[in-house]
């Protein structure tokens, strides 16, 4: 699309969408948010950009859609099976606390699971949209 306003807006909105999506992803454990909605936000940023710049822009963003899907599936698998190491049932949350000076950061498999969902949602949405855009030759 040849609107200069749209082009510039899309260019600057994409990082905003993605940063906000990571914020939503991280707050998801105790408050509204999480992997699915964050994935939708991130992919809407990327899609807004590629609707303006054409379907090639999807394949040029960060990773290919398929790689997002693989990354997501591997993340989910890891988070599900890490519980086995502690001989707990599937998907049991395993937590570890890192102490770095002032902060105390708790990292656990639920975050890994949420990140997996995040990438899976991005990958699936980009795959669907890019195949439709290629079909109708959206340049």
């Amino acid at each position, binding site marked *: 699309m040849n609107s200069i306003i749209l082009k510039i807006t899309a260019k600057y909105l994409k990082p905003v969408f993605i940063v906000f999506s990571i914020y939503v992803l991280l707050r998801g454990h105790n408050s509204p948010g999480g992997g699915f909605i964050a994935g939708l936000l991130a992919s809407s940023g990327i899609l807004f950009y590629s609707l303006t710049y054409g379907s090639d822009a999807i394949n040029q963003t960060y990773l290919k859609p*398929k790689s997002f*899907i*693989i990354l997501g*599936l*591997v993340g989910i*698998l890891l988070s*599900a*099976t890490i*519980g*086995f190491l502690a001989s*707990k*049932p*599937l*998907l*049991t*949350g395993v937590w570890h606390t890192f102490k770095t000076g002032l902060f105390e950061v708790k990292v656990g498999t639920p975050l890994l699971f949420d990140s997996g969902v995040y990438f899976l949602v991005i990958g699936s949405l980009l795959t669907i949209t890019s195949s439709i855009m290629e079909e109708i030759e959206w340049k």
Partner: protein
Amino acid sequence: MKGMLTLPILIPLIAIPILLVIKNNRIKRIISISATAALVVVSVHLLQTVQQSGIQVMNIGNWSAPIGIPIVIDLYSAIMLIMAGIIGFCISIYASKNIGSQRENHHFHPLFHALLLGVNGAFITGDIFNLFVWFEVMLMASFCLLILGNERAQLEGAIKYITMSLISSFLFVAGIGLIYGETGTLNMADLARIIEDDDAMLMNTSAMLFFIAFGIKAAIFPFFYWLPASYHTPPAAVSALFAGLLTKVGVYAMVRFFTLFFVHNDAFWHTLLLVVAGATMFIGVIMAASQNDIRRILSFHIISQIGYMIMGLGIFTPLAISGAIYFTFHNVMAKTNTFLVAGIINSLKGSYHIKTLGGLYKQHPLVAFIFFIPAMALAGLPPLSGFFAKFVLVKAGLESNEYLITFVALLVSIITLFSMVKIWGHAFWKSEENGEHDSTRRPALTLVIPCVLLCCISAGIGIGANYCLELTTSAAEQLLDKKHYVEAVLKISEHENPH
């Protein structure tokens, strides 16, 4: 040890990303075949475990049962898992030749494993909302498999299939919502406990919603028309997979629900089930008799055979349920096999139409043999599996004085034999019209091996019917005595989480 219980879903889940990463089709096939072989081994092992030490339960995420989601494997689930594993294994071999490299490049293999993931998940979950999620996993994968290849007929079939599936999913969720509002739980064992001492009349609305939702998925009488409209469009391996597994998951869910917690008002429900079963059998087989495309004949037969399984559920004695389980297993093996052989015939002759086919018996005796076994198993000739399956159902029908449905079952059996003979007579015995045939073309070995394997199973469970029926009878007794299920799920959770 408890980790074993999750393997039926973990194996396909691990296979999917691996199959997505790999580019070489040959390696993809090997991985696909070995993953499904692992599924068979695991499910046989699970069956043995359940036989030795009763119903196996595992709480996902270590959340106790009424709140968390349990994985529950009883004998019925284990038998269904073995069935899915065997079908997966045979079709992964068959697909390596049949599906074509273009579809393989467009992710046939990951989708195939996603379908197995959904099917296995549905067989082992102990939570009705989780069951819905597994249904959706299975449906998503089946939508993609159905349209993979983008042929015109495929898209036309897919629209009907997707529309009906979405309606069914909608009714399913509506039923779940109602039952949650009434009882406050979604755990199957908890539901069984609550509904027992609750006013059961309130459950009829949600029971009817579930009945229609599973009915659409299982393709029973008024809701079957999507099936013959879509099953004959994709390649043979995919049709065979759908024919074998998809409708049976609907049957599984129906049997599970109507033995575990919708056991009230049996005068109404069992009559309804029997009427539907009779109509499904009869209409399916009559419509099959009027078709001329092999795959359409077989598609209508799927519907007709579903009727027998519902008949077992409707009679509702241990013997009848046992017959229904045995029939499901037999039917999946034989039906998948006939679809696979139809694919071989197409690869040899380039047609599915029985009027143009002919002379196969003379040119390809092996193909004729591997079609004859499952076709006669479906028709119910001894000593093949179908005879014992129908015998048990008929015996159960006579014992509980359900003479009408028994008569319909026997009549349908004869018409089934008629349409199998119709395919046999046209495609195999009739001499080919244009006379010219090159008998040098042999069916590929990778196509024949899975069919031979399934033939052996059809004959094997017929000859070993005594052992198999003992197994299915104890599965049926376990289903009808729901106390075991409830205790296994609710007690173990208290034991694991004492606080």
